[in-house]
């Protein structure tokens, strides 16, 4: 066995060269910077979107035209109770707030995008449809007629 041992070498293993570690990490960093986008809100309601086979993917250039309305059970039950509520931007709100919220968000968009803007109702699959209907009525009141039901893309239904 001793013929493999280097002459005069100490028993310690040589340290691994970590000079290229920053390069590797930077590469990962750039990948994530390019492939992902910023989270817009921190969800305060639980939303599991229902699955639909005919879901249409929203093109990346249309992302800024989405006005999101989240509906679901609040995660902080002590504060907001267990009944389904809706979240607009970062606040838990009621149906009466939807109209003003949508108008305000519309005004924030550049004028050219306003006609193409749409409201995406991202609701949990367990909520009852009543609250969704109320939202739709509120949207009709402010003439925001383009909507989308936020869904998950599923392959087969049956």
């Amino acid at each position, binding site marked *: 066995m001793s013929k493999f041992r280097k002459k005069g070498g100490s028993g310690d293993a040589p340290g691994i060269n*970590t*000079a290229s*570690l*920053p390069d590797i*990490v*930077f590469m*990962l*960093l750039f990948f*994530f*910077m390019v*492939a*992902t*986008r*910023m*989270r817009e809100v921190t969800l305060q309601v639980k939303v599991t*979107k*229902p*699955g*639909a*086979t*005919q*879901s*249409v*993917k*929203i*093109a990346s250039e249309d*992302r800024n035209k*989405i006005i999101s309305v989240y509906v679901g059970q609040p995660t902080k039950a002590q504060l907001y109770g267990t009944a389904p509520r809706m979240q607009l931007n970062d606040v838990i709100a009621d149906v009466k707030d939807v109209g003003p919220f949508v108008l305000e968000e519309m005004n924030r968009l550049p004028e050219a995008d306003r006609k193409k803007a*749409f409201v*995406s109702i991202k*609701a*949990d*699959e*367990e*909520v*009852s*449809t*009543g609250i*969704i*209907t109320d939202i*739709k*009525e509120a*949207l*009709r*009141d402010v*003439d925001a*007629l*383009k*909507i*989308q*039901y*936020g*869904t*998950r*893309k599923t392959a087969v*239904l*049956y």
Partner: protein
Amino acid sequence: MGRRSRKPLPEINSGSMADIAFLLLIFFLVTTTMDQEYGLPRELPRKVEEKIPPPPVKERNVLLVYVNRNNELLVNNEYGDVKTLKERVKNFIPNRTNRSDWPEKDAPEEYGEDGFTFVFQKSKGIVALQNDRLTTYKTYIEVQDVLTQAFNELRNELAKAKYGKSYDELSELAAKGQTDDIQEEANTQMHAIQKAIPMAISEAEPIKSK
């Protein structure tokens, strides 16, 4: 000047570079998402003053789909099933056998432009979707999905018959066609199909729970 350049510059210690990069990496991992957004696009009906009566719709043109609070389906006042609903709609809307209790059709009309025209009889059929306030959203979307699927398949069939490509293929081409001409062409054809078979789903206000 000469004195400084004679000495070699000390190298900057880059040992902590990896730490800085890791920190940035972790920051981006936490604050960004990768998930894609999907949805079912719909157009809500415009709110009209109640004095104006809605245009009369003949009963034979409407397929009434009602989802109750137990997530059961009623299709034209009979028990229905989500699994058979698609075929039901696909037969009902085009009314190929000209049944008297299924929708009427418009007079033959020309659809499309720029040499991609075809003559087609547009159906007057509408699917009216009604739900209870206590219907689960999941079921509601499931029904919406099935209805969308039915209309998309009708469009696929028509596009295949008239242009040799399915509607899905056309929309793919319109978005990612190799040249502008191909995109333009697919777009024209897509609009013609859309006009011939509109997504006639009416979402009426729900029936009040008693």
